[in-house]
């Protein structure tokens, strides 16, 4: 696929991950998380959740992974604006999805606006109403 093949309605190749309790705990440990909802099942239950759940930014990376895989280089991913939906619990399978909504050529750069979201194994959205912006150069190719 070349730059000229990119058009409105094109779906980005989705990215799926099985979320493990171990990785939720490791994620919090990396950045010194303060929030016991991501560490302590009893606390999470006390404040209304089923058990601990993943940090939003942790599973947001599945969306940015999808964007960066498509764009081909980290520099080409410029912006995301997204809402979080229902919590992501251990053993959920989260799939990030996207569809191209708009393209605009400016000089040698193709500016792309995508609608992005992610959903769990039941099809419930864990991120929603996302808008992402990519900038691809004329050397862009996708195998």
């Amino acid at each position, binding site marked *: 696929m070349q730059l000229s093949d990119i058009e409105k309605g094109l779906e980005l190749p989705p990215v799926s991950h099985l979320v493990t309790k171990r*990785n939720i705990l490791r994620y919090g440990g*990396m*950045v010194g998380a303060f929030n016991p909802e991501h560490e302590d099942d009893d606390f999470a239950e006390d*404040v209304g959740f089923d058990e601990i759940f993943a940090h939003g*930014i942790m599973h947001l990376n599945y969306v*940015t992974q999808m964007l*960066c895989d498509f764009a081909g280089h*980290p520099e080409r991913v410029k912006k995301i604006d*997204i809402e979080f939906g229902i*919590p992501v619990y251990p053993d959920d399978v989260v799939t990030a999805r996207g569809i191209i909504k708009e393209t605009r050529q400016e000089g040698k750069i193709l500016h792309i606006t995508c609608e992005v979201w992610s959903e769990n194994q039941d099809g419930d959205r864990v991120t929603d109403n996302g808008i992402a912006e990519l900038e691809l150069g004329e050397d862009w190719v996708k195998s």
Partner: protein
Amino acid sequence: MNKSAIGKEYPHVTYELTKKMILKYSEVVEDPNPYFNDEEAEALYAPHTLIGAYTLLLVPHIVADEELDMDVSKSVIHTHQIYEWKRPARAGDVLTIRGRIADIQSKGEYETITFEGDIIDQDGEQVVVARSTLKIG
């Protein structure tokens, strides 16, 4: 929370983004992109959400802020996120987080708080602009 805290800035936090931090982050979020995993490459880039995750380094300042009076014994969930990446962060960058409270709203049973942060590199250039909203209660 105390709405008079809107506009308040927190002490700048500076850290060096190391290869080790990037490699561990890529492993935990299971992002296999070679740009985020190849430590022999000319540049090792940070996955796009890493810089956002490390803005959590500000959290102890926020939780300890008596003027703000945020009750973290309640449910705290992340509801909205904006990141604008000016360039990808790389191993070796020395990054400074400049965070401030952009908004606080009461919604009856719960409250929301919005933080804005600029992440600045060793040359004073913007790397990421972040805007995060949390729902509390």
